[in-house]
C-alpha cells in the first residue's frame, strides 16, 4: 500500500475516525494495528521481523536500564508485559554483562538482521570477486533474499533508542505498546523521516484529539507532498529511466537533461513522501521534524547535508561521526571521520558499490571544501565580490558537483536491478563529456522535457516564494486563501499528475 493509491485513501478514511474515536491506550492500539496492517500489505511475512526487532530493542533498553539502576523497584509496575520481561531481565542482569556489552549485543543483532537481509549477497558477491581476482574460484551460491521494505529506517530508529538509553539521554520505555507504536508508526515506517525515541515517545503521553488547525496545516503539507510526488517526480521518471536504462542511445544534451531531471525527481519523490508523512502525523497530533529544507540552494556541502535527508544526516552525525571523534582531534582525524560517515551513509542507501562511491564523492567534496573554503572567502573579500555573485557561484558549484554524484547514485539503483552500475555511470558521463548531440533537435521526447522544465520551474517558484510568504502558515489564518490554494493544488494534480501509483524511490532503501 503506497500513499498515492486509492487503497491508502480508503485506509486513512477508516483509520482517522477510529483513531480520534479512542483515547490513551486505545489510541495507541489503533495506531499499532493500523501500522502493522499497513506494513503487512507489503508482505505480511516481514511483520515478524519488525515485531522481533521491536521486542529485542525494548528488552535491550530495559536490560541496560536495569544494569544502571540495579534496584528492582520497577517490578511493581502495573504493566504486565513489563513485569514479565523485567523478571527475565533481572536474571540476565546477574550475569557479567555491562551496559556497554548489552549495547554492543543490541547493535550487533540489529546490524546482523539488516546485514543479512540487505547486504548478504552484496558482501558474498564482493568477496567472490576479490577471491577470483587472486586466483581462487569460490563455489558458494548467493541466496535469494527479499529486502523487507523500510528495514533500514526502522532498524536505525530502534538502534537510536537503545543507544540513547545507554547514554542515559533517555529513560527506558516501560510500555511495550508505546514502544511498538514508535517503531511501526505507519506514516514514516517505510521511508522515514527517522524519528528519535526521545522526540517521539514523550508525545505519546497524552491522548490526541482532533484539532481543526492541525488538520488544515497537515492537509496543506499532504497536498504539497502529493504534488511533488505525483505531478513532478512521476512526470520526470519516464525520461530519467530511459536515460539510465539505455544511455548509449542518447546524445550529450539529452543525458544532461536526464541527470538534472533525476536531481529533481529524487528530491520531489523523497521530500514529497516526507511532506505526506509529516502532514499525516500532524493531523494525528504529533510533531515530526523537517526532513528537507530546499537543499539545492546550499552554498556548501556541509550546508547541503543539513538540508537533505536531515533525519539521516543528523542520525549519522550523532551516532557515528561524533562518537568517532567528530572534528575534535585534528584535521586528519576529522577528514577520516567525515569520510567514514559518508561512506557508511552511502552504503546505507543500498547494497551496491555505486552507492558507496556516491558517499565517497560527498566525503571528498566535504574534505576539499574544508581545505579551500578559507582561501575562497579570503579571495572574495579581497576582491570585494558582490555577495549575490559569490552566493550564485557557490550554489552553482555545489549543485553541479551534486549532479555528478547523483549519476552514480542513480546508476546504483540500476545495479540493484541487475544492471552494470559503474558501466551505466561511465556511459552517461562519457556521452555527456563527448559533446556530441548538443542540439535540442537531438533530444528525444521533447514534450517530456518541456513538461519537466515547466514543473521544475513551478517547484522553484513555489519553494522560493514560500521562503518569504510561508503559504502553509498563511492559509491557516485566511480560509479564503486556503480554499484557493487547496483548489489550485488539486487542479495542478488533475492536470499534471501521473496516477500510475508509482512506488517511492526510497522504498528500495
Amino acid at each position, binding site marked *: 500500500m503506497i500513499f498515492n493509491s486509492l487503497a491508502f485513501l480508503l485506509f486513512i478514511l477508516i483509520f482517522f475516525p477510529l483513531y480520534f474515536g479512542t483515547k490513551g491506550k486505545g489510541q495507541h492500539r489503533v495506531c499499532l494495528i493500523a501500522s502493522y496492517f499497513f506494513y503487512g500489505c507489503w508482505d505480511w511475512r516481514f511483520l515478524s521481523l519488525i515485531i522481533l526487532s521491536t521486542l529485542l530493542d525494548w528488552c535491550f533498553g530495559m536490560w541496560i536500564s536495569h544494569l544502571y539502576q540495579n534496584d528492582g523497584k520497577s517490578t511493581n509496575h502495573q504493566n504486565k508485559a513489563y513485569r514479565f520481561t523485567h523478571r527475565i531481565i533481572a536474571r540476565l542482569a546477574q550475569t557479567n554483562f555491562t551496559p556497554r556489552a548489552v549495547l554492543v549485543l543490541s547493535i550487533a543483532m540489529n546490524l546482523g538482521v539488516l546485514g543479512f537481509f540487505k547486504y548478504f549477497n552484496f558482501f558474498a558477491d564482493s568477496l567472490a570477486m576479490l577471491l577470483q581476482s587472486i586466483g581462487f574460484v569460490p563455489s558458494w551460491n548467493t541466496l535469494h533474499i527479499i529486502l523487507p521494505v523500510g528495514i533500514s529506517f526502522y532498524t536505525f530508529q530502534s538502534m537510536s533508542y537503545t543507544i540513547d538509553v545507554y547514554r542515559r539521554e533517555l529513560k527506558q520505555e516501560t510500555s511495550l505498546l508505546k514502544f511498538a507504536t514508535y517503531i511501526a508508526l505507519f506514516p514514516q515506517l517505510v521511508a522515514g523521516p527517522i524519528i528519535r525515541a526521545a522526540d517521539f515517545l514523550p508525545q505519546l503521553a497524552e491522548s490526541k484529539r482532533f484539532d*481543526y488547525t492541525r488538520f488544515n496545516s497537515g492537509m496543506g503539507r499532504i497536498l504539497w507532498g502529493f504534488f511533488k510526488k505525483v505531478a513532478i517526480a512521476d512526470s520526470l521518471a519516464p525520461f530519467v529511466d530511459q536515460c539510465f536504462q539505455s544511455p*548509449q*542511445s542518447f*546524445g550529450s544534451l539529452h543525458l544532461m537533461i536526464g541527470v538534472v531531471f533525476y536531481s529533481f525527481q529524487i528530491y520531489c519523490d523523497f521530500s514529497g513522501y516526507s511532506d505526506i508523512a509529516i502532514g499525516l502525523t500532524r493531523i494525528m497530533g504529533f510533531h515530526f521534524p523537517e526532513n528537507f529544507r530546499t537543499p539545492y540552494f546550499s552554498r556548501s556541502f556541509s550546508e547541503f547535508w543539513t538540508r537533505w535527508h536531515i533525519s539521516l544526516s543528523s542520525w549519522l552525525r550523532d551516532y557515528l561521526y561524533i562518537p568517532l571523534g567528530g572534528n575534535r582531534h585534528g584535521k586528519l582525524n576529522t577528514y577520516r571521520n567525515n569520510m567514514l560517515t559518508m561512506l557508511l551513509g552511502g552504503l546505507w542507501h543500498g547494497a551496491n558499490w555505486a552507492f558507496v562511491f556516491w558517499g565517497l564523492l560527498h566525503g571528498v567534496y566535504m574534505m576539499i571544501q574544508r581545505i579551500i573554503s578559507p582561501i575562497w572567502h579570503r579571495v572574495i573579500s579581497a576582491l570585494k565580490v558582490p555577495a549575490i555573485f559569490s552566493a550564485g557561484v557557490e550554489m552553482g558549484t555545489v549543485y553541479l558537483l551534486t549532479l555528478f554524484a547523483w549519476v552514480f547514485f542513480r546508476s546504483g539503483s540500476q545495479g540493484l536491478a541487475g544492471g552494470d552500475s559503474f558501466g551505466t555511470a561511465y556511459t552517461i558521463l562519457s556521452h555527456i563529456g563527448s559533446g*556530441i*548531440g548538443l542540439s535540442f*533537435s*537531438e533530444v528525444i521526447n521533447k*514534450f*517530456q522535457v*518541456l*513538461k519537466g522544465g515547466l514543473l521544475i520551474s513551478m517547484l522553484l517558484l513555489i519553494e522560493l516564494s514560500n521562503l518569504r510568504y510561508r503559504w502553509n502558515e498563511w492559509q491557516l489564518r485566511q*480560509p479564503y486563501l*486556503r*480554499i*484557493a490554494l*487547496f*483548489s*489550485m493544488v*488539486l*487542479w495542478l494534480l*488533475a*492536470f*499534471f*499528475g501521473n*496516477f*500510475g501509483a508509482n512506488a517511492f524511490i526510497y522504498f528500495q532503501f
Partner: protein
Amino acid sequence: MQKVVWYLLLPLAFFAGDRLGGYLLQKQSERSHFRYSRLYQNKAKADILLLGNSRGLCLYQPYIEEITHKKTCNLSYNGLPMDAAKALVLDYLDRYPEVKTLVIDVTMCDRENDPLLTGFLAYTDKSERLNTLIHNKELKAWWGGQVSHLFRYNNEIFQRALYYRNKSDEDWLLDRVITEAQIIDTSKSTYELDVNPYLIRQLQETIEASLEKGVQAHLVIAPYLPGFTVENLDNLKKAVEKATGLQVLDYRNSLVDPTFFGDYMHLNKEGSRHFIDMLRKDGVFD
C-alpha cells in the same frame, strides 16, 4: 459549523475551476492544427489516409502530396495501437467519405498500449468509439475524466495539440541520423514483435469497414535498419495476410544506407523520401 462550511466550499471551488479550465483547454484543442483535432473539427479532408505507430510517421505527408498531387492525412502516433487506430479510422470514414486510399504500416498490430488510450480522453466528447474503448480498457482513467475535466487534458496528446496550435503537424518526422555508436551496436540490438490476435482482428475489421466504403487499403512494412533483428515479423506478416486476405508489401530490408535512419526502427526525412518513392513505384498511391 463554520469550519465544516469551509470544507464544503472546497469541492465547489474545485469543480467550478475544473470545469472552467476543462472548457478553456477544450477550446484550445479544437483550434489546434494537430491531426486528431483537425479530424474532429472536420478539417482533415484527404484522398489518402495514412496510419501507423511511430513508424507510420515516416509516411511523410508533404512529400507524398508533392509527388502525387493528392491531399493526405496521417493519423499515425507514437505507440498507437490498432484498437485506437480503428476507432480513429472509422470516425474518419464517417466524416470524410471522399477518401480513396488507406495505407497502414502493419507493425502497429504489435502490442496493446492502454496507457496511451487515456491520451484520447481529450476527444471522448467528440467520439463515441474512443469513449467506449477507453471505458472498456482504462476504466479508472475514464472515471478520472468524468470527475475532472482537467484530467482529460493531462496527457501528451493534448500537449501536442497545444504545440501545433498555430502550426501544421504534417512535418512531424525524425530529423536526425542514427549515431555511429548505435550502428556499431546494430547486431546486438533486437526487437520482439508480439503477434496479438486481438489487434489483428481490429485491423481486419478496419479493412472490412474501409472496403465497404470503397476505400482501397494497402498494407505495408516500412524499412528497418539492415542488421537489426526484428523477431516474429514474418509471423506477424503471415497472420495479417491470413486475417485480411490482402498482401503485405514488405520493405523491411529495402533501404541499406544507415544515413536514411534516425534509429534502428525509424526512417528520417531523407529515408522517408526513398521509401515513399518505392511505394509510389509499386502503385500504392494510385
